[in-house]
Structure formats: C-alpha cells, structure tokens
C-alpha cells in the first residue's frame, strides 16, 4: 500500500480515537450532568466521524472503487446525537438533577421545566 495513503488513514484513525477518548474522559472528569452532556455529544460524534472517514478511505483503496456507505452512519449520528442530548437535558431538568454551584442563571431551570418563558412565575397546569 502506498505510504501516503497509509499515513492519511493513520492520521484520520488516530484523530478519531483521540476524540473518542477525550469524550469518555470528559464523561468521567466533568462535575455535573449538564456539563457532562457536552463531551459525548460533541467529541465522541466527531471522533466516530474521523474513524468512519478513515475506514472509507481504507476500503476504497482496498477494493479499488469508492465505497461511501460509511457516510450513512455518519449522517445518522449527526442527525440523532443532538436529539438524544436534547431529550437527556429535558429529563435532567424534569428530575431536577443537581448542578454545579457556580452555574449561572440556574433559575432558568424552574421555568424551562414547565416550558414557560423566562421570568414567567405563574403556574400553568
């Protein structure tokens, strides 16, 4: 296999692996649930994208024709990862999961969980 193609695939794979690892390190290190949501949705999705791109280049080079079906998984993840994050944030708000002391504007949670506008104090059932 050509040296430069190997180098390209290796760089893509290792970048992907590093981002996936950073996502999981974030999952362990960060202090509260809302902050923890950021690491897997962003870093892990990009990491998987890198690995899929590497796999695409490798398979295309191996078979001699362009294989693009890895793009399906990337597309699917880019569409679904934000939905999962949104639903988990919603659940966290409804269950009033504790958050970091220095979170600013924490009072937004009480209106957000009732789906009201900020500053709206009246109860709406």
């Amino acid at each position, binding site marked *: 296999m050509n040296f430069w193609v190997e180098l390209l695939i290796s760089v893509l794979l290792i970048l992907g692996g590093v*981002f996936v690892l950073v996502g999981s390190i*974030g999952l362990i290190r960060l202090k509260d649930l809302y902050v923890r949501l950021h690491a897997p949705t962003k870093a892990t999705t990009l990491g998987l994208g890198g690995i899929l791109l590497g796999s695409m280049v490798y398979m295309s080079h191996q078979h001699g024709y362009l294989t693009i079906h890895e793009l399906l998984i990337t597309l699917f993840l880019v569409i679904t990862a934000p939905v999962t*994050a949104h639903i988990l944030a919603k659940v966290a708000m409804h269950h009033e999961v504790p958050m970091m002391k220095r979170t600013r504007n924490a009072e937004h949670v009480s209106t957000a969980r009732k789906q009201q506008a900020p500053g709206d104090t009246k109860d709406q059932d």
Partner: protein
Amino acid sequence: MSMTSRWLPMPFHSLLLLAVWLMLNGSLSLGHLLLGSVLAIVIPLICAPLQVPQPKIARPLKALRYVIMVLGDIVVANVQVALLVVGPMRRINPGFVAVPLDLDETFPITVLASTVTMTPGTVSAEVSSDRNWLYVHVLNMPDDEQEVIDLIKTRYEAAIKEIFAC
C-alpha cells in the same frame, strides 16, 4: 392535483430513499436501481398522509452553504471543548441562557436546536411551549451572556431564516 404531486408527493424524500438504498447495497446495478425506484415511489405514497406540513427549503444553495459552515464549526467547537475537558476544571464556568426565537415553525426550530447542540459549546435543553424561547446550556460562559445569544442569533438563526424564507 398534477401528475407529479400525485405520484411523487415527497420528491426530496423519494430521492433520499433511492440514494440510501443504493448506498446500503453498495452497487449501481439495474436490479437495485429498479427495486430502489419502486421503494422510493411506494413508501412516500404510504407515508404522505401522515406528514405534518412543514415549510419548504426555499433556497437549496444557501442550505448547502449552511451545512458546510456547520461542519467547519463542528470541528472548531470540538477542539475547544476537548481542550476544556482535558484542561483544569476551574476554567469551566457553565450557565443557562434563554435565547429568544424569531422562527415559529417546528422544523426550522428543530434544525436550529440541533445545530446549537452540535456546535459552539452549547446544548439545547428545552423549547418553551409558545415556541418563543430556546433554553440553552453553555459549557463555558463568557462574562457577558449576550455574546452567546448574539452568536446563535446572527450566525445560525439568521441563516436558517433565509433558507426557509420565513
């Protein structure tokens, strides 16, 4: 009702179905083209009555440019978030922000919420029931929260408004 809207109620979905079918099978042979075309016509015919009417993409070229811009932003935002995650924890100052929305259809709001989650260190958390406010959790708040709101409104919401022409 014209012929095309009768047999192809959702032309974009039909094209997407055909493309996904061909990608899944990894071939461009005649058989797969035929089978994919049949599926691309039959499935939208069955699903069309279930559809909730949504605003159409008025300017496809702008939409393409938006996708490319967001892909670039995803990479930049990821590097920033990765540096914050690996660096010392005291540099993280989280916070909530309520962004006033100018969009009022559900599909454009969904697109905006998804982009906000994927890009600049923010996760969308809730939409108010009157669709006027988007609650966003910010990983690292700047001193002035208006910066975040302005970034979301000028960079993403304005572009989405142009694309859907609403």
